[in-house]
């Protein structure tokens, strides 16, 4: 049934899009601006992007960011998936409580998690010589940040799967490993992929947790941008920010696409 839309609905939509995307659009547009300073449009150029390729600090930060995101996503995906599997297939005391506790890292402000992790790493350093802040601590921190997101997404997917399918596999002669390998894992896979891509973008964009848990030499793109901005905003920063934006957006769209496809199948 079609209902008449109020003209206010259209206005609200426009306002939402302006609020959400105008700042991003500005960054994107100015990354192609010839002018080095100011807010005047002086012509189109891709020069700032080319200059990034010569900027050793930016390249090192980009490499760090990707390495961090890939490593932490890999570990967080394994742990988060195992967690989701355990929580949906087994009963244990305190399961409900644990279910709620799992959501806490999703809701608490990043800054609280960041400070907590920093304190924790400082404590570990007291007992473990050679445990310095740097890539390792940042990776561990990101894994902590990502696990709940992956577990929640995979669990939602498993809740939609009929547990009787695993019984059917056993009935057809598949032992526990073969059942997992040929039935459970393929059914979980859309959730695993969606969850890990989500976690990947979280890591890619993260500033607060990285800033608190990093050490000398381990600079990521968001940290690099932050420190550059203190010395004045340049179009190079715009270019860098635009690249991060494009990668994140592409990942999110992939997630949406994968989800859409599995919805249709069922």
């Amino acid at each position, binding site marked *: 049934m079609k209902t008449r839309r109020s003209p206010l609905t259209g206005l609200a939509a426009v306002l939402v899009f302006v609020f959400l995307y105008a700042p991003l659009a500005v960054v994107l547009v100015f990354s192609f601006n010839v002018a080095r300073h100011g807010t005047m449009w002086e012509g189109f150029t891709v020069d700032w992007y080319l200059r990034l390729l010569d900027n050793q600090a930016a390249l090192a930060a980009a490499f760090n960011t990707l390495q961090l995101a890939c490593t932490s996503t890999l570990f967080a995906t394994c742990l988060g998936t195992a967690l989701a599997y355990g929580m949906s297939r087994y009963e244990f005391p305190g399961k409900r409580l644990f279910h709620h506790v799992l959501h806490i890292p999703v809701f608490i402000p990043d800054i609280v998690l960041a400070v907590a992790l920093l304190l924790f790493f400082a404590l570990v350093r007291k007992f473990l010589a050679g445990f310095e802040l740097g890539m390792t601590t940042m990776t561990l921190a990101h894994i902590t940040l990502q696990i709940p997101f992956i577990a929640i997404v995979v669990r939602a997917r498993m809740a939609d799967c*009929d547990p*009787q*399918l695993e*019984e*059917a*596999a*056993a*009935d*057809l*002669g*598949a*032992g526990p490993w*073969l*059942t997992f390998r*040929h*039935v459970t894992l*393929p*059914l979980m896979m859309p959730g695993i992929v969606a969850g890990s891509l989500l976690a990947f973008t979280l890591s890619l964009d993260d500033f607060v947790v990285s800033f608190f848990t990093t050490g000398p030499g381990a600079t990521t793109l968001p940290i690099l941008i932050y420190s550059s901005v203190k010395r004045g905003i340049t179009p190079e920063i715009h270019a860098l920010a635009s690249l991060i934006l494009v990668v994140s957006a592409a990942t999110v769209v992939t997630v949406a696409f994968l989800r859409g496809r599995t919805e249709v*199948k*069922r």
Partner: protein
Amino acid sequence: MTVPSSTTFWFILPCRFTKTNPLQPAETNAADGSLVVECQQLTRRFGQFEALAGVSLNIRRGEFFSLLGPSGCGKTTLLRIIAGLDLPDTGELRIGGLPALHLPAWKRPVNTVFQNYALFPHLSVSENIAFGLRMKRLPSADIVRRTTSVMELTQILPLAGRHPHELSGGQKQRVALARALVNEPAVLLLDEPMGALDAKLRKELQLELRQLQRRLGITFVHVTHDQDEALAMSDRVAVMNAGRIVQLGTPDELYDRPKTSFVAEFIGVCNLFEGNLIRRTKQLLETETPLGRLRIELPATTIELSERSRLRLGVRPERIAMDGGQPGDNRLLGIVQSISSSGPETIAQVRVGDTLLRVTELNMGRRSVALHAGDSVELTISPGNFFLLED
């Protein structure tokens, strides 16, 4: 492409198929009296609920066996225990003569057709069917050959490349059946396999399933709450209630000689009443009942029940005649309370004394009795048409 939905007879399949069929034809392992499933005193509790209260049961090789009962009677629990998907609290289970309780589901020589089919949504029809053989690591040529022949047998070859979400209910049921049969199980377990299908399709599939079972000679253990389905398909039926087997027998035995009022009322419709024994001569009893004085003839097997003075008696509605009957029948005078036709039969409620009797008569093309409500009618019941209940 669609699979013909009409009933097709298995014996018109080409001979070539029967020769290469890995599924053995019936002659080699037809019912030979040996036992393929033996249950002894199985019990199972879920918290306070007693799902099985000591079930002992033997299933013969090659028979079509049904577990029949209302929901919650324990029939599905018993099936899951045989499959290895659940374990009893106490009791013993043998499959093919060997103890089976220590075997996990995936090592037992049984396969199940699940109630909701439980087809793997990420696999095609042929991959679903090949699953069991792949798990056993058979050579891929054998897998293809056996998968293809079982798909021919169940008439789903044109569906091979489809995914479960592209199938109708009846097609899913065939795929689930094929997926189980391809493994050539010693016992095929069917958990309400027609539960999700409409009535017409159900009738067709009942017939097909029965013919398939006869042809292959595989032992079928079938769980259902539908008494028509159990009677139509089975060699033997175990009627279950509250975790126990209340009666086990052939469909005819259960219908003609129910032992308890539960079985009598669960299987078919019946008129139950009580009577006092007046005199007994051999198999012929004379009783005083609310319907009047009745002569009852019992088979020798249930004669010991007539030792009691108080008898619980029953008679099926279609064993009461309204057309005059035979000499020697019991004759009762009643008044028609209501009369209606279901198409094939006329159903009448007739008051005899204070008792309301249900009477049905087949419409054989001669409406001999054009009766109306309020008419008086003479009912006749042959002495051999009564049954005696134990409870």
